[in-house]
């Protein structure tokens, strides 16, 4: 299960809405080993595309180094789908490389209702998990 503070949940949704129709992406960092997301980091989508996302490699390097120095890890890696459901695509699965992370998918295809779902992706196997929003 992913437990996420309301304020971080709202930031992910706001980022996805702001970048629509392009895909938005980012990270929630948290203390290593705690599984607790605490810090919101919106990342640039280097692809600026409605169907693909990729972290900018220079930005990723800086952010990963900051996390390393603060003894944090990427607890959540999120991105949006803007015309399809919030389920990992084949590309998402083939790139998934943080086995300890929660992969959050947000769909902004419906203007009024946002889908927000979370998955574990390990060795190509996708497992959906419940999302608990902590008020």
């Amino acid at each position: 299960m992913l437990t996420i503070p309301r304020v971080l949940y709202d930031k992910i949704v706001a980022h996805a809405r702001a970048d629509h129709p392009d895909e938005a992406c980012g990270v929630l960092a948290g203390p290593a080993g705690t599984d607790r997301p605490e810090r919101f980091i919106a990342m640039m989508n280097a692809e600026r595309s409605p169907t693909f996302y990729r972290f900018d490699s220079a930005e990723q390097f800086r952010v990963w180094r900051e996390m390393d120095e603060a003894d944090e890890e990427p607890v959540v890696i999120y991105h949006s789908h803007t015309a399809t459901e919030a389920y990992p695509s084949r590309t998402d699965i083939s790139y998934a490389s943080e086995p300890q992370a929660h992969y959050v998918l947000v769909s902004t295809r419906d203007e009024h209702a946002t889908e927000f779902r979370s998955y574990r992706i390990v060795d190509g196997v996708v497992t959906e998990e419940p999302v608990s929003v902590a008020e």
Partner: protein
Amino acid sequence: MAIEVRIPTILRTYTDGAKQVEGTGSTLGELFTDLEQRHGGLRDRLVDGGSLRRFVNVYLNDEDVRFLDGLDTPVKDGDTVTVLPAVAGGAR
């Protein structure tokens, strides 16, 4: 002195859990070949044929080696090489 190589979580199965390892070589490609002798299987996760795999980012100090010379990028003692999995995906 040697070249320090930082290993991401997903590849630490090849380094007995070590976060960083050391190696030698005059280019990035030679460094990976050197690492392979002590960390069998690692090179194959970084290199495909003669070039870097699409799924990994490799940095020399703080520069992405794709913007340098890829596997031919010269390296020297005291350098730090960082490997990070690329984070990417899409709707298809």
